[in-house]
Each structure stands twice: as structure tokens, then as C-alpha cells.
């Protein structure tokens, strides 16, 4: 374990010990903390870099059935006893007891970091994306590297830390169709598919030039849609967030009776894999200390499981292992890690031929999400209107939406061109052919 991880664990242990010595019945420390760097380049030549240490560490203390939390963004600059005292002195609120335990002995993930590129290397890489584009083209790109440690210490003697790393390179271009984006993501600088992204950007530049800003906006209609891999990843991430234990509590309880039944077409297999090699969110244990394990949510259309924390697993009979800590909440909620829609055997060209008449999405304009009130999945794409399998007119800012359960039944096929999303945190998907969606 390197120095940074050891110091985080040491800080956590000291804070927990101080909290217990100060009268707490129990305490825990959780944090994600480490270096981050971000560089932005515009086609005009403007370059901006930002780098430093990011993240925070929290200590939560329990006393007499009540709890309070103190957070710091600089554990190495804090006296752990003063830090614990801040939490002890808060007005506490009723809270269930701590549910965090770590496997013994000390568990760590991979500690080796990839070599971070320096600023000039990053700028050179980003400039290579613009090959062929004029200096006046409204293009920009950004490279973000994050390398945090996650630390978890409980008052039962458990403590652990693991390293993670993400490199995201994305580009945007503005034109008659609005703000269009594309990108690549990997766990190391060397694994970024820069060539693939560069090729797609050249296609996008040609696409933007072909757009007619005076073209009429399409009236709402229903059409067959070919979602691009990024659109499929947005759907995968949205579904992973949707099928969670806390959502059972807030309206999805009837779905408990659907476990083991057909919920989607045969083409749909949805998996969350926190151990995935090269996954941006891979980890040895979740944010409650439960060892990470793969969860198949939907298999060949059959609904298999929800993602659970320990609490919701106990409440609803599931298996824990998907706990995630959101900044504002002390109690973890379930969230997907490396969630993906399984690819299929067909090429994207095969799916395009099957599209016949409809909309071929080639890129993303807007993130996808499932509205919790209406149950509708919505995203916005750019691409081509297709007739008889041939592209006839480009279009951008096309909204596609569908009730999520109808959408799952109407997925006809997944292609083989799966990619890790640069935008939908850890999700991946191939192109997805959907029989019918609302398009406007």
C-alpha cells in the first residue's frame, strides 16, 4: 500500500478511535480522495488546465441511537481528534446503527497507477483529434484524469482502501444542430481509443456541415430508432439506477412479484459488474464494505434482480453489494457500477438494414434519464432519417422517448459495437435497435 492510502487509513483509524474515546457508541470514516487534472482545448487555440487534490473524508458518529457527520476536504491537514470532536458536538438526529463492516484482514485493490500524462502531452493528444478541422470550426475537447483512493474504516477494527483511476477524453462541436458531443473513456491513458474517437469526430464535422439550419422541426411521431452506443449506455445507466432497492420503497414494490418473469425482449441482458476488468467503477468492495459481485438484473428478457444495499437486501430478500455513498446522505443507496447492456452478434450495419424506415442515431446531444414521475426514458440524439435502409436527411436535437417498460419490450436487437461511455459513468452498450419510440 502506498503512502497516500496508508495515511488515509491511519487518519480514519485515529478519527474513529477518537470518536469512541469521546463517548461515541460507534463510528465510521468514509472518503474518496486523490489527485485530479482537467485540460480543455478549443479549436481557436485556447488551452486551460486545472489540477490538484479533490474529494472529501467524512466521520460519522453514533451515540444513544442518534448520529451526526463531519466532513473535511483535507484529511492530511486535520487533527483527527478535532475532526471527530466536530462530529460529536453536532446536534444529532435519530439514525439506525452503523451497517458497515469490512472483511478482515485489510483489503486493498490495485495500487499501481498508470503514468499520468503531463500537460504538453495532453494538449498534443487533444490537438490530434482536430486533424482536418479548420481553426474556425466550433470544436473543443477536454481531458479529465481522476485518481482517487476510497477509504473505509469502521469501529469494529476493519479498515481498507483501494485505488481507482479514470481517463475521459471528450469533444464537442457546435453548429446548426446544437451542442454535439462524443468521447472515449478508459482506466489508463494508454487504453484510450483516441483513433476511434478521432475518426468519429471527422465524421461529425462532415455531419455538422451537412445540417440545414433551416430544416423544419419534426412533428412528434413514433418511429423505429437505432440508438448509438452512447445512447444505449445512457439507457443502461438509467436502468441500473431505476432497478434499485430504494426505488422498491418509493413505488416499484409491484416489481418484486415480477422477478423471474419476462419483463423485456429476448435481446435484453442487463448486468452490473463491479469487478469488470477495465471498468471505470471497478472496486473490491462496495461503500458498505460488502465484497463486490456481479448482479444480472435482466437476462434474455427475464427480470432477475434489483441492486441492493444491506438494508434493502434484508428488507426485500435480495443480495447486497451495490451500496454507494452520495454526498448529501449518510445512508448509502444502491447504484450501478459498471452496468452494461450485453452486446449481440450483429454488426451495426446489420441493424441499420433492419431499421428500414426510422431514425438512425449516430451521437448524443443530451444525457438520457428515466423520469421518476412518468417512468419515461428520454434522450436527445443527432443522426439521420432513414428510408428503405438508406440515409435521406440529417437531423440533430431529435428527442427520443418511451415508457421504460414498453421500451424494454420493444428492443429488437443489440449490435456488437459496444463501447464504454464517456458520459454515463461506467456504463457501456452497443448500438440498440428499438421497434418504436416517440420521436420529436
Amino acid at each position: 500500500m502506498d503512502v497516500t492510502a496508508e495515511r488515509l487509513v491511519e487518519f480514519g483509524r485515529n478519527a474513529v478511535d477518537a470518536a469512541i474515546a469521546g463517548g461515541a457508541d460507534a463510528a465510521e470514516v468514509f472518503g474518496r480522495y486523490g489527485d485530479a487534472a482537467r485540460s480543455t482545448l478549443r479549436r481557436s487555440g485556447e488551452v486551460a488546465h486545472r489540477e490538484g487534490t479533490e474529494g472529501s473524508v467524512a466521520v460519522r458518529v453514533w451515540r444513544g441511537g442518534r448520529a451526526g457527520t463531519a466532513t473535511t476536504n483535507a484529511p492530511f491537514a486535520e487533527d483527527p481528534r478535532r475532526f471527530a470532536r466536530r462530529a460529536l458536538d453536532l446536534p444529532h438526529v435519530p439514525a439506525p446503527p452503523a451497517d458497515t463492516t469490512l472483511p478482515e484482514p485489510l483489503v486493498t485493490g490495485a495500487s499501481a497507477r498508470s503514468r499520468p500524462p503531463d500537460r504538453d502531452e495532453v494538449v498534443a493528444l487533444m490537438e490530434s483529434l482536430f486533424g482536418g478541422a479548420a481553426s474556425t470550426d466550433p470544436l473543443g475537447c477536454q481531458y479529465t484524469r481522476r485518481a482517487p483512493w476510497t477509504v473505509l474504516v469502521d469501529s469494529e477494527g476493519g479498515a481498507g482502501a483501494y485505488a481507482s483511476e479514470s481517463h475521459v477524453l471528450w469533444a464537442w462541436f457546435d453548429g446548426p444542430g446544437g451542442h454535439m458531443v462524443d468521447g472515449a473513456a478508459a482506466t489508463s491513458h494508454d487504453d484510450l481509443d483516441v483513433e476511434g474517437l478521432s475518426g468519429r469526430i471527422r465524421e461529425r464535422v462532415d455531419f455538422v456541415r451537412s445540417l440545414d439550419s433551416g430544416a423544419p422541426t419534426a412533428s412528434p411521431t413514433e418511429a423505429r430508432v437505432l440508438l448509438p452506443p452512447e445512447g444505449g449506455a445512457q439507457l443502461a445507466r438509467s436502468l441500473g439506477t431505476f432497478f434499485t432497492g430504494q426505488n422498491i420503497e418509493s413505488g416499484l414494490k409491484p416489481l418484486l412479484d415480477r422477478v423471474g418473469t419476462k419483463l423485456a425482449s429476448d435481446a435484453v441482458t442487463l448486468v452490473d459488474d463491479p469487478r469488470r476488468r477495465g471498468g471505470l467503477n471497478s472496486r473490491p468492495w462496495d461503500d458498505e464494505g460488502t465484497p463486490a459481485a456481479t448482479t444480472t438484473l435482466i437476462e434474455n428478457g427475464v427480470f432477475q434482480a434489483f441492486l441492493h444495499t444491506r438494508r434493502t437486501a434484508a428488507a426485500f430478500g435480495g443480495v447486497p453489494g451495490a451500496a454507494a455513498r452520495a454526498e448529501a446522505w449518510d445512508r448509502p443507496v444502491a447504484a450501478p457500477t459498471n452496468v452494461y447492456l450485453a452486446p449481440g452478434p450483429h454488426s451495426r450495419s446489420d441493424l441499420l438494414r433492419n431499421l428500414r424506415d426510422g431514425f438512425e442515431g449516430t451521437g448524443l446531444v443530451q444525457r438520457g434519464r428515466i423520469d421518476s414521475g412518468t417512468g419515461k426514458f428520454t434522450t436527445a440524439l443527432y443522426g439521420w432519417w432513414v428510408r428503405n435502409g438508406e440515409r435521406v436527411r440529417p437531423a440533430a436535437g431529435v428527442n427520443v422517448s418511451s415508457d421504460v417498460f414498453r421500451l424494454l419490450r420493444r428492443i429488437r436487437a443489440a449490435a456488437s459495437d459496444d463501447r464504454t461511455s464517456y458520459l454515463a459513468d461506467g456504463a457501456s452498450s452497443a448500438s440498440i435497435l428499438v421497434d418504436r419510440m416517440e420521436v420529436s
Partner: protein
Amino acid sequence: MLERDLMLEVCRAGATDGARCDMFVEATSTSIYAGRGDDRSVRLLFDGGIGLGRTGDTRTVHVHTPDVSEAGARRLAGALGYGGSFPSRPPAAADARTEAFASAFPPRACDDVVRVAREVEREVHAVDATAGVNLRVAAVVRKIAVASSEGDVVEDVQQRAFLSVEAITRRGNRLRAARRLLGALTADGLMIGAAHRLAGRAAAETALARLDAIEAPTGELPVVLGPGGPAALLHEVCGHGLEADVAAHPGSAYHGRIGERVAVEGLTLVDDPTKPEDAPHYRYDDEGIPASSTTLIEDGVLRSYMHDRRSAAGLATRPNGHARRVSYRFPALPRMSSTFVTAGADDPDEIVRGVGHGIYVRAISGGDTDMDSGRFTVRASEPYLIEGGRITAPLRGAILAVTGSQILRTIDRIGNDVEFYNHSYACNKLDQFPLTVSVGQPTIRIAALHVWGG
């Protein structure tokens, strides 16, 4: 927090080759109460550090550290060289930083936050004993010090408090929610006039009424935006376009249009960090420029953009106090603060009476905007049907789609009832999120917007 002379010395050391260098030191304490269903949480967050930025003609570098000490400041200056990596050595002394934070922390903030939360929850349950409550109360104290290589240092203390209460009611399998937002300078301020309890009551009563909500109509319809919160719409669709770095792009909606008519007569849009008077944002922006009121659009004519130092220099004008940053980790950008439409002459009831079939929007819950073009889709979280000049049935939800320029040209009535949503809107720009802003407006009618249920 740091000695003035030290701050200036480090800035000057970083300003080589004609570049400008600025240092931003921050110490922020945030007291938060969060409640969701049966979950309750009280948190005290300390955040702070030093950001050091160097701005040349085409290249900017911003480095940051949580180490608020002389050693931390000097290390940042060394990190501003190109080709080097940021040193990640642990900082030396903890005492300077801890002392800075201790002095930023108002001793009773957490107690007041919890008191506000408990009283709001009781009020919601007085209306509907079985209602679910999602609640967030926060009180923030932010101390900043800003220095630049041009030789000036300013300090400021900024405060804000915020309440968000969402009541969730149920009838059979039907769930409906309604939310109220409230902002003030301090947690105490949220309780003036029992405003916090009134917000809880209103959220619960509205959620109950929304159990009878119907599907929104689809099509091009007149839309009446109520006073206060719906101003978030104008924030999204034209506010960002008036930030000078966005307006600098050729092809952006307001590029090169100073002096042109961009909106209907009678519409005046202002951004003023000192408003509303009982809950101002700041005295100095995050580059140390004094806050000032900026009239962006006057009687329909574009008058000004919101500037930081860099964009102002680019247009050979003076910065006007709109440089803001989410934290010391970020460089400043031209950002909104308190953006509002000034009062018009029309009676708000008369505005609604003039609509035969349309939508009334009481609250906006967010959306997606293309900043350059101003094209957006936004979710109206509390829409109502207007029939025969009367606000009638609540609607389940509605999505509105249009561009900012279209809205500004199709506003046909402006009311005389300006209200503010103080410190209640979280603004996103590039990767700097969330930045707290205020929005305000009177009742406004838009002749036609594309609406569909959502």
C-alpha cells in the same frame, strides 16, 4: 487566512511573460440537515484551500491545494510551470487551516438548521399525517480572500441559507409530490414570518391537490409563468447566453448584438449580486471586483454582458463584478448571481384572464440547455391548465421546448408582481456545479411554446 504580503508575493512570482496571476483563498463551512423518508442526517462540512491561476493570451493554468499555509501557497507557485506534475506531498502544518475554518464556523448554525427542519416537518404532517417528506436545510458561511499580480487584495464574507421541502402524498397507488424552495441569508432568516412553516404547509397542500392532476395537453400553447421560481427558465435560455465568454463565440445567440433589439419592448433583465436586499450574494466577485448591478437587456435592447476580467479585456471594457467560481479548485468564469426581470405594468390576474386555453407554470424543476444557441427543454414541475381565463386542473407534468430568442420575442404580457427565489437555484456551467444563484420575475405570458406531457 494568509498574510496579504505573502499572497501578493506568490501572485507576482507566478506572473511571468506578461501573464496575469491571481490567488483565491477560501474557507467554507456548511451545516446541512437532510431528511428523506425515515432517513435523517446532520452534517457539518469544512472545505477550503488555495487556488492559483495564471492567465496568458491563449493558455490558462489553475492549480489548487487544500493546504492553506505559506508552504502550500509557495508550492502552487512552483506548480505553475509547464511540463511538470503537481507535487502531492502532504502539507506541513494543520493549525493555520484549522484556525481559518474555526473562525468561519458560526457556533449555532447546525442547531438553527435542525430547528428549521423539525418545524417544517411538523407543518407538513399537520396537513397530511401520512405524507412523505424530503427535506434539505443548509446554512453556508464562506470567507474569501482574493489577490492578483496587479497588486490588489480584497476579502469578503458571504452567507446564505436554503430550504427545500418536498411533500409526497398518496392515494391508493397514486403518488404525487410538490416542492417549495426558500432562501435567506441565515438559517434564522428562513424563520422570519414563519416562512419556513408556510413553505412546508404549501408543499403538503399542493401535493394533495396534485393527486387529481391530469395529463398535460400537447401542442403550441400560450404559457403563463408565475412570479418567482419560473424565472429559472430565462436563466437557462438567455442568461447563460449573456455570460461574456459564451457570447464571445461567433454563432452564439447574442454574439456581437449589443445595442440591438433582442426582446419585446418593456422587458428589462438585470443581474445584480446585491439583490434582493435582504439576501445579497456578495460584495466582491471571485476576482475581487466590486459587485454591481448590470442591466443586460433594457426595454428589449441588449445593453451588456456579464464579464470576468478576461472577457472584459477581450472587449476592451471594464469587468463588472460577475466572476464567480464554485470553489477555490476552479478558475473564475462569467456567471450569473441574482438574475431578474423587472416589474412591468400588467395586472397578473388580468394576464391569466386573457388566456382561453393554455398552461400556467408555477415552478420549473430543471432541464437541458444548449448555452450557445439557447435551445432548451425544461420540465415544468407544477403546471396547471388555464381554461377560459381561469387556472383550473393541476397537470402531471409538462415539458416546454423552445429557444431563448423565441421566448424573448413572444412575451406579450409582463406583470407588476416581481418575486425572487433567493439562493434557491443551482446553476451548472461546464464542470462548475453547483453554483447557487437567485432568480426573479413577475408574472409573464409567452404567446406560444411547444408543450408536451412529461
